[in-house]
């Protein structure tokens, strides 16, 4: 059927899964490799949207081969990739009747809270569904990173209580978290009221926005070289 493909067995020895996806995205035989790769992403705290979309597509082509546990893991990893729209990108490929299952419903609610900046509700809800995340290392940290990211797009200076709520920490653990950010990400703690000054970027300090106005790429200018010459 016009498939110009080599057998994946002989490839997987020399190819990484990423390369496999690039070369053979429409080969049903790579499905087990991709499933293993999802597990590997979970344990090794790595992430590949390409590979996961490829797997969801193969499930879409052959629904009878779908493994909902793997799908759930893909969705958890996608949540951890916020602020990218990856969670939606995955849901676009998951049939509605599958999305109706309890575990997916819970994930969809969690994504909704993250999408609408409601971190407190998110953490409350996550606590109720801890079984979904316990086996996924780095989950909390990833969400905290997203929270910090979103706060620093929005705030120059953020009250400590707002931060605490967003990253779901208090007391010593919050202190430690802030200390870490002070050392690594340039956060500053104000002496008088404990507010946090977030690092400057073009979104919370619009004056930093580069004047991207005129940036004509060389290849466009190259088109008039003959004239100028």
């Amino acid at each position, binding site marked *: *059927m016009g498939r110009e493909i080599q057998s994946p067995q002989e490839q997987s020895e020399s190819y990484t899964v990423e390369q496999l996806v690039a070369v053979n995205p429409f080969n049903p035989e790579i499905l087990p490799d991709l499933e293993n790769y999802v597990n590997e992403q979970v344990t090794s705290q790595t992430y590949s949207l390409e590979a996961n*979309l490829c797997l969801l597509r193969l499930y*879409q082509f052959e629904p*009878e081969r779908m493994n909902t546990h793997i799908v759930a893991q893909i969705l958890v990893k996608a949540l951890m990739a916020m602020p990218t729209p990856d969670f939606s990108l995955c849901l676009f490929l998951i049939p509605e009747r599958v999305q109706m299952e309890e575990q997916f419903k819970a994930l969809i609610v969690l994504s909704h809270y993250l999408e609408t900046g409601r971190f407190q509700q998110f953490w409350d809800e996550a606590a109720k569904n801890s079984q979904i995340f316990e086996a996924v290392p780095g989950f909390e940290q990833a969400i905290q990173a997203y929270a910090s990211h979103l706060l620093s797009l*929005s705030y120059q200076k953020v009250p400590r209580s707002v931060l605490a709520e967003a990253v779901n920490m208090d007391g010593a653990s919050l202190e430690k978290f802030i200390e870490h950010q002070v050392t690594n990400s340039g956060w500053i703690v104000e002496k008088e009221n404990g*507010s946090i000054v977030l690092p400057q970027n073009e*979104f919370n300090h619009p004056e930093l926005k580069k004047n991207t106005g005129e940036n004509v790429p060389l290849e466009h200018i190259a088109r008039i070289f003959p004239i100028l010459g």
Partner: protein
Amino acid sequence: MAANYEYDDAPAANYEGESGGEGGYDPNFVPDSVKSFVVHMYRHIREKNVYEIHQMCETSFQTLSERLFKETPWPCVEAIAPYVDNDHVFCLLYREMWFRHLYARLSPTLKQRIDSYDNYCSLFQVVLHGVVNMQLPNQWLWDMVDEFVYQFQSFCQFRAKLKNKTEQEIALLKQHDKAWNVYGVLNFLQALVEKSTIVQILEQDKDGLEQFTATDGYDYSGGSNVLKVLGYFSMVGLLRVHCLLGDYHTGLKWLQPIDITQQGVYTSVIGCHIATIYHYGFANLMLRRYVDAVREFNKILLYIYKTKQYHQKSPQYEQILKKNEQMYALLAVCLSLCPQTKLVDESVNSQLREKYGEKMMRMQRYDDEAFVIFDELFSYACPKFITPSAPSFEEPLVNYNQDAYRLQLKMFLYEVKQQQLLAGVRTFLKVYSSISLAKLAKYMEVDESTLRTILLTYKHKTHSVDSDGRIISNADIDFYVNNDKIYVVETKPAKRHGDFFLRQIAKFDAVHIVYHAFKLRNG
């Protein structure tokens, strides 16, 4: 697969139903005008007269169809084969047109759908094996890819309407489970992209080492353009198939080798130009990259607005108008979610207001009625989503042709819901340069912590992540918070003078040359 032309048994009765029973259709009867058509076409193909081939496809084929084959198919391939030396490739091409005409004017039977797929398989295999030494018009090559994807989509829709299938049809579906199989379709498109090495060709083209774009993909040194250009169009085909599947990210990835900020081979065929931008824009809408969608919709709508009259006679005219309307609807949706009207050209904007002005005002209100309009415009303008898997025939036979569409619609409306409070914030941000959280909370009738979440939502939804992972602002009005005070920032779109000057320099140079020639002649 070579001589698979069992079309003699295409029952004439089949067409009587559709043609209102006038006289019956004899697939073996070849009128003189058709004889002359195939003979000329065959000669022009052999002699690589691209322009003549193009004319015959675009004009003669349409005129003959209109005159002789309004309600019946063209003569079967066996009947015309003797006039073209039984040329294998020509027969494949003829059948490709034969089916295209059938799909456009009549309703294909399941058997015909399957046969058309087999014909595409044979045709693409011949091309992939590199034995086609022809120069075919871009328009025709685009039509092949476009039609291939269209027929795939049409087959998926057809198959999904299981309820009213006859037992015979079910049996045929089971028997031919390879026909229009999603793996087969995708693998053909991918194989064309790979075998043509089009991605590398475009890379080299950028560095000036290839003349692909400059020659519109044609090969003037005796070679064939067929594989190269089919490979090129297949990237657009893959974008479209992935949009039909709901995989927008991967779809855009397939398009990446084509630089859509520039003219290219994809702009040489209006249908391709529109299909590319339509799917690019739609995918970006779903990825929440509204500014990218708005920018490209604006460009193509302006182009269509300015050039519409030149396409009036084209067989694609109706299709152009339909996509034009759909893209206005999508533009209305984008601008309702992300009011960047400054990015829209004046004439496009006035068209937009005329068509959707009132609806856009209602969408801004984000009440129940607004959702109805978002629903309506999305449903009108979205691609025809498909369920690519074969049904399980054991279960009770139900129609599932709407499933894929309903899922995408639901997801989209969910997104709209998440953004419903943003229009309110925007209204206030517009009129203040700074305002305290407490005051804004009071105005919006929410408590302060809710307001903080709304502000975070605003930031999140107006900032998208681009394909390189960078954060891009889509906001017309932005803000930052310092402790308890909100400061408003109005973003001004960067004016782009560079392109304007480049174009004017080229134009001025052209005028200069004419002037110089004139001066020389007149001493």
